């Protein structure tokens, strides 16, 4: 039966059908839903790990134990997991091991647009790339067969448009896989130098055999139509090219993007007049072709940045442009903002008041960098906020500049923040770390983490005590504030910035969108008292806007949090009594 499945949902179905037993992941758009759907299958054990390195290391252990195992992550998450990845490539597997990595060309929800195919090549791990939901399901199952046949982990590369598109999918029954008995084998599984050196030779031989496999694998498919134009492509780029060019071109669709075939590409090249490589981000396939002297046209036409589309390909290859209408009015941008009632708003307002250098991190609160709060000075990667603030204050010193404050969410603090905090305490830093504890992983859509007291399955579990943890790593000054009380937050931050030792402020208030959070009735504006001074707009709440020269509160959005009340000198913002 055909079902309309999300790409990520189809990967999860593939895990189920392949008899996978253990799933360990960290959420990251666009990969998150794979694990959220996987937990729906009771035959699989699924968990959220604190970060991608831990997730992959857990899956490696499960594979050693003889089970088919899986981890999902986004592209920047694979950087975190790169350390175990490059070595599990050497050890190989016992039970099949597959790692899904979801790239984000166009940066819909990411801080860079890295091309993870480079990780496949660099770690010498084969990579498959599906182009729609049906292939997501099939390639996931095939990846396990390859993993066990070639004794290697396998990377499954997704991109936003594959992960987050629904297309028709045929589902089948689960095939149970018995545990493969574990045999002690330190030569294979203990990677110290003497044992790792021969394993590198094994890996090179494996890559040679995989290249042979790529020459004839059904994953790599030729479609001959008109031979005037030939296109080598993979993944979603195939779909764009196929729609743009139809039967005016022939296609070599590569389902396996590492290692790449040589003879197959040569044969295809010999059949067509002009050969193009159509690929998003890096010139990965193009470089391979040129290495073997196969003349192709690629990045001369296409950008290294952003997503492709059928129109870009149509324009570049056929010189055809779509016709469309446009209005001659300026359309203001609509950037994403922190939600009405978001507790992080109070802290950012307080930071702005205290004029701190704010070292930011990855999560909803990164939106605090936007106007009008504009309260963040830097944002690099998960966990970078605390070391960033530490480095800044070591370089600049309080006497020469603004004091450095790090802001980091509870989930990100668990992911890779705590090591940065240990470094601050250990090396005599003097920074303020604000843990924005909204009791959930907010940005990716409410996943549990070690501070929430619930597992991925929703079962009660141990809960990290952030106050005790901060003290345990050596921070003497630890305090908790409620961000809804803004003047107290301003004072707390002021005191900690002035202190002569490092401190942690835990700003605790659950995400306003959580279902168990009870809201107060919406606030309203007393139009007689309102002078239209716009002071209340400075908090950047999307529920407050200007109507007929006075402030107005949208009752559908307002959750009655009251953070705006203290901003009005005229007492014009009132709640329902």
């Amino acid at each position: 039966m055909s079902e309309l499945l999300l790409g990520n949902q189809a990967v999860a179905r593939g895990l189920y059908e392949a008899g996978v037993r253990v799933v360990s992941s960290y959420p990251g758009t666009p990969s998150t839903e794979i694990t959220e759907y996987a937990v729906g299958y009771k035959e699989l054990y699924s968990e959220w790990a604190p970060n991608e390195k831990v997730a992959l290391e857990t899956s490696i252990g499960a594979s050693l134990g003889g089970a088919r195992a899986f981890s999902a992550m986004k592209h920047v998450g694979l950087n975190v997991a790169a350390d175990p990845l490059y070595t599990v490539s050497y050890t190989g597997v016992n039970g099949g091991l597959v790692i899904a990595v979801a790239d984000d060309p166009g940066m819909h929800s990411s801080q860079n647009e890295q091309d993870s195919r480079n990780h496949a090549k660099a770690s010498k791990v084969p990579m498959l790339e599906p182009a729609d939901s049906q292939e997501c399901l099939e390639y996931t199952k095939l990846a396990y067969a390859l993993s066990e046949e070639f004794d290697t982990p396998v990377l499954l590369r997704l991109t936003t448009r594959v992960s987050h598109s629904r297309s028709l999918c045929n589902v089948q029954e689960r095939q149970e896989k018995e545990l493969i008995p574990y045999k002690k084998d330190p030569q294979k599984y203990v990677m110290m130098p003497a044992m790792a050196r021969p394993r590198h030779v094994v890996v090179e031989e494996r890559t040679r055999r995989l290249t042979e496999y790529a020459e004839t694998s059904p994953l790599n498919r030729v479609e001959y139509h008109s031979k005037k134009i030939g296109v080598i492509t993979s993944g979603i780029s195939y779909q764009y090219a196929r729609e743009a060019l139809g039967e005016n071109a022939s296609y070599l669709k590569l389902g396996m993007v590492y290692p790449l075939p040589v003879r197959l590409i040569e044969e295809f090249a010999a059949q067509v007049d002009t050969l193009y490589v159509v690929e998003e981000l890096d010139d990965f396939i193009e470089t391979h072709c040129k290495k073997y002297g196969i003349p192709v046209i690629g990045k001369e036409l296409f950008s290294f940045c952003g997503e492709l589309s059928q129109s870009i390909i149509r324009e570049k290859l056929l010189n055809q442009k779509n016709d469309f209408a446009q209005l001659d009015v300026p359309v203001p941008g609509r950037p994403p903002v922190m939600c009405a009632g978001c507790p992080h708003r109070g802290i950012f307002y307080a930071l702005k008041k205290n004029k701190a250098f704010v070292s930011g991190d990855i999560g909803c609160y990164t939106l605090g960098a936007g106007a009008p709060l504009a309260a963040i000075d830097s944002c690099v990667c998960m966990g970078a906020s605390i070391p960033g603030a530490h480095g800044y204050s070591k370089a600049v010193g309080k006497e020469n500049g603004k004091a450095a404050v790090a802001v980091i969410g509870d989930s990100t603090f668990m992911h890779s923040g705590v090591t940065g905090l240990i470094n601050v305490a250990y090396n005599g830093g003097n920074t303020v770390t604000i843990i924005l504890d909204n009791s959930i992983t907010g940005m990716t859509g409410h996943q549990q983490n070690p501070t929430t007291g619930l597992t991925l399955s929703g079962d009660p579990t141990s809960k990290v005590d952030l106050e005790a943890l901060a003290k345990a790593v050596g921070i003497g000054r630890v305090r908790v504030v409620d961000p809804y009380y803004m003047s107290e937050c301003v004072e707390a931050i002021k005191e900690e910035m002035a202190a002569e030792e490092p401190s942690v402020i835990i700003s605790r208030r659950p995400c306003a969108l959580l279902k168990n959070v009870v809201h107060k009735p919406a606030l309203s504006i007393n139009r007689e008292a309102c002078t239209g001074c716009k002071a209340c707009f400075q908090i950047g709440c999307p529920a407050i806007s200007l109507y007929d020269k006075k402030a107005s509160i949208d009752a559908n959005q307002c959750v009655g949090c009251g953070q705006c009340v203290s901003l009005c000198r005229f007492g014009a913002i009132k709640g329902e009594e």
Partner: protein
Amino acid sequence: MSKDVTSILIVGVGGQGTLLASKLLGEVVCDQGYDVKVSEVHGMSQRGGSVVTYVKYGEKVYSPLIDAGEADVMVAFELLEAVRYLPFLKKGGTIVVNDQKIDPMPVIIGSAQYPQNLLEELTAAGVKLLAMDGLAVAAEAGNAKAVNVVLMGALAKQLPYPKEVWEKALTKVVPPKFLEMNKRAFVLGYEHP
């Protein structure tokens, strides 16, 4: 360009329910036996930002994207977003629009203005415009949040599939608790003049 593919663009502001709307439409056309691709919006863009989802169906659909000049119909949950994505519409295409205005942050803080007379401007651009006060209709159905289903009701009137197919799809995508209210919202949208 495959002529046998129908492309429908759903645009709005993050939080308005474009994702559910695109799933609903996806289920309806899937039920009709078409090949279908629905490209959804997840993650950062959901936080009150401008969002766009694509639904394409026909004999065979390759790309999940709709590019400039390719959409047959646009359903806009907010007026300014209709104007933002107008270039995606084919010339002479149809727009089903909720005439609600939601100020984006640059407008709230006074660094930009919400343009005036957009309905008139859109009409002058030569599109078939079906405007409605979706918020009022949703309130009539019992919940302002059902504005997405109201608009899908209005879209359903423009497409050749019977109401029952839509109601069946609603049952699939809406949680049982909200089903009756959403069915009312759909019918009110469908029957809106």
